[in-house]
């Protein structure tokens, strides 16, 4: 979990030129860090490569739009880390 968070925090800092110190597990990528959808494509690309997964961004967006999920579930970084860990585990299963 912590290493996953460290990896995505470093990716966000490098991709979006955000000071690493300002990125915490409680940070919301959109609401707190101001990352827009285009920048998030770069982040998703880097995460996909780093973890060998495919973040289901379209599915998540649909769930949020349908009111079945909140953005917190996917875009608060500790939750994003947990989702990534799940995807990595599912890949290895």
């Amino acid at each position, binding site marked *: 979990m912590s290493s996953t968070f460290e990896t995505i925090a470093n990716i966000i800092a490098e991709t979006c030129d955000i000071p690493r110190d300002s990125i915490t597990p409680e940070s919301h990528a959109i609401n707190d860090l101001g990352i827009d959808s285009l920048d998030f494509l770069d982040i998703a690309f880097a995460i*996909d490569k780093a973890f060998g997964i495919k973040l289901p*961004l379209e599915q998540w967006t649909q769930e949020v739009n349908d009111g079945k999920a909140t953005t917190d579930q996917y875009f608060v970084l500790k939750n994003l880390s947990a989702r990534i860990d799940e995807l990595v585990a599912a890949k290895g299963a």
Partner: protein
Amino acid sequence: MRLEYFQLIDRIVELRLDDRTISTEATVPTTSTIFEGHFPGYPLMPGVLLVETMAQTSGWLVVAANRFERMPFLAAVKDAKFRTFVTPGMVLAVTATLLHEGSGYAVTKASISTKGKPICDAVLTLRVMPFPNEEMSQQMRAQADRIGFPSEVPAHG
């Protein structure tokens, strides 16, 4: 190439989904209103149209990878380098490789050369989404037929 209509690809030379690569060809027209301004007395193909040429080539690869069910739209251009001038009448060889297929986006690396000499290259990000309407889908399929989209890739569903 029909620059004014943004029809920048003349034909698909090769499309290999197993290698995630595509090659296209395009001949720069000898006359165009664009050359009247870019530049008077010294016509050059604008760099932005070279980027668009790489984007369209990448786009056909992504269309093929999505079995003509989704449409790519240019979202980002990175590391674009223009190494030499492109002049009227030049025959361009365009290639693109699919680096990554994400959820709702794709990343390609594309390049243009002429007679083996590199012209330009870039890394492109494309948003990939359902066709906005049936008219656009039909237009894309007509374009595909025009440039020789290979029949083994199901262009007609």
